[in-house]
């Protein structure tokens, strides 16, 4: 394998892992509520920015990270309680506007509470690149991929083995049936938002040493993570990961071999193609909302 190709693949997988984490957040919420949470990208932003600002006040970085994840989860819970729940049963358009409004609100608050500059975190284990097949891999990328895998495994254990997790799965498959067997659907919804928000924050913390963070870092990441979720199949955990990695690698390869100018378009073209031909995505459930 040529060193060039190796480099493209490695950077594609790194960025793909980031997209995967964001996509996971989308999928969990979609699973529980059939709501696309357009504010998912802002959770990523909150994770990174909170860690940076807390670490700046002298708090040890690991503590700052935990605090950031907790804060983000709280924001997610608040979003569900005060914005999504009152609008339960509303048409899709209404829910879309609510979550988009939430993302604008969160960004506005972030710009006020923090600042409009870019920030970074020190990489977890140094900056010396590791040579792999002639390409240079940053240690931080290993962290990103590693933690993503760990999270996917943890989530599959959670959904497969714990009662709450199984309840969440049941709700996503058939809400009414879940209610009939006594599952508190409202609580499932509540938890799913908190969980997604926490995940988003973890993604934000992991990638800040590589891609920097700022008050509006969530916009593009949110959109791309979204495209990745659609690619892999909305509502499917493995699908989110697959979609993320595919998207990242596709972007990297097209930037390397085709044209770097249109790299950003790749994500959306792929998403559109998927929606036209296989709306449920590669690993999504076969039930589609099509006429």
């Amino acid at each position, binding site marked *: 394998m040529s060193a060039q190709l190796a480099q493209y693949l490695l950077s594609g997988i790194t960025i793909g892992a980031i997209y995967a984490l964001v996509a996971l957040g989308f999928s969990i919420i979609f699973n529980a509520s059939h709501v696309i949470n357009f504010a998912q990208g802002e959770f990523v932003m909150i994770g990174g920015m909170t860690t940076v600002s807390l670490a700046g006040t002298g708090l040890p970085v690991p503590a700052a990270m935990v605090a950031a994840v907790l804060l983000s989860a709280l924001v997610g819970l608040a979003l569900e309680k005060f914005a999504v729940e009152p609008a339960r049963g509303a048409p899709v358009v209404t829910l879309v506007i609510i979550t988009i409004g939430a993302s604008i609100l969160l960004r*506005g608050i972030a710009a006020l509470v923090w600042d409009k500059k870019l920030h970074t975190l020190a990489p977890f284990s140094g900056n010396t690149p590791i040579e792999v097949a002639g390409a240079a891999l940053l240690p931080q990328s290993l962290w990103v991929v590693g933690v993503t895998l760990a999270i996917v495994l943890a989530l599959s254990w959670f959904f497969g083995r714990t009662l709450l997790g199984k309840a969440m799965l049941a709700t996503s498959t058939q809400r009414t049936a879940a209610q009939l067997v006594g599952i508190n659907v409202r609580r499932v919804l509540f938890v799913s938002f908190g969980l997604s928000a926490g995940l988003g924050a973890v993604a934000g913390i992991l990638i800040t040493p590589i891609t920097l963070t700022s008050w509006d870092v969530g916009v593009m990441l949110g959109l791309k993570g979204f495209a990745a979720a659609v690619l892999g199949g909305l509502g499917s955990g493995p699908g989110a990961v697959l979609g993320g990695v595919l998207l990242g690698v596709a972007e990297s390869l097209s930037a390397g071999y085709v044209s770097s100018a249109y790299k950003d378009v790749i994500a959306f073209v792929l998403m559109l193609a998927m929606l036209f031909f296989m709306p449920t995505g590669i690993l999504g459930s076969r039930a589609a909302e099509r006429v």
Partner: protein
Amino acid sequence: MISWLSSPRRGGLLALLAVIAALPLALPNNYFYEVAILVGLNAIVCVGLNLLIGYAGQISLGHAGFFGLGAYGSAILSTRFDWPPLVSIAAATLGVGAIAYLIGRPILRLKGHYLAMATLGMGVIVSIVAATEDRWTGGPDGMPVKPLGVLGATISGEGTWYWVVGALLLAAVWLSLNLVESPTGRALRALSASEVAAEVSGIDSARQKVRVFVISALFAAVAGSLTAHYSGFITPSKLSFFHSIEFVTMVVFGGMASTYGAVVGAAVLTTLPQLLTVFRDYEMVVFGAVMMGTMIFMPKGLVPSLGELAARKDPR
């Protein structure tokens, strides 16, 4: 007399005409005229978008794409190819209509969130292309646009533009009201209530959906090209995802399935940023809060909610 006036078509149009005619008395300078013109242009887009979202029950998160394609189309044809501006506007509008027709069929087979995502994707792709193809579009910094000339005379000056936009808005509202009360309109409403039931009654839902999609795209394209010629300048931010959201918010805020609601929504949300300048740093926060608040507490939108309040007070 009252019943004649209270029919939305006649009474409402007259009221709108009265407002448009009388407003200049309250506009002290060109700045106010400019805001009024922008309100009118946004209202045209919203009236069209409302047909799609409110009456047909679909969703589009990429309508700024049609707006922008109309704007850039007319800008490029008139400024780079020296076509007469009126012809450019017509050509750009028809071109956008054709594009809407071509993508309408495949895209409208999707529903709900999938449709939202697809339209979002389209919008983003168009905006990236506009920002990248700088040879044609001038890139992210945009390009200047020739002013609008009709039969040799240039339309310039806020006053003239005001009447042009006002007349077009009246035309757009009239068209929309007519459509709503026509068989197509009834078909759309049936469609939005239940697509399956509509199909069973013999409505070709796919065709109707594409039809209203194209109409709303045409409205957006006309407004877009006029905006380009009015401002004398066009940038890719007019095609952005955020701009699409602004349009959808205007429609939903004013009231879905209400043509006048779309106009009111456009009016309120276009003037809001001007009023919010007092808040300087808090603009985004307030805007986001308004979006969320309206949807949570007034999900039907402003005009229908007010209508409900009025009806409750007057139980006839």
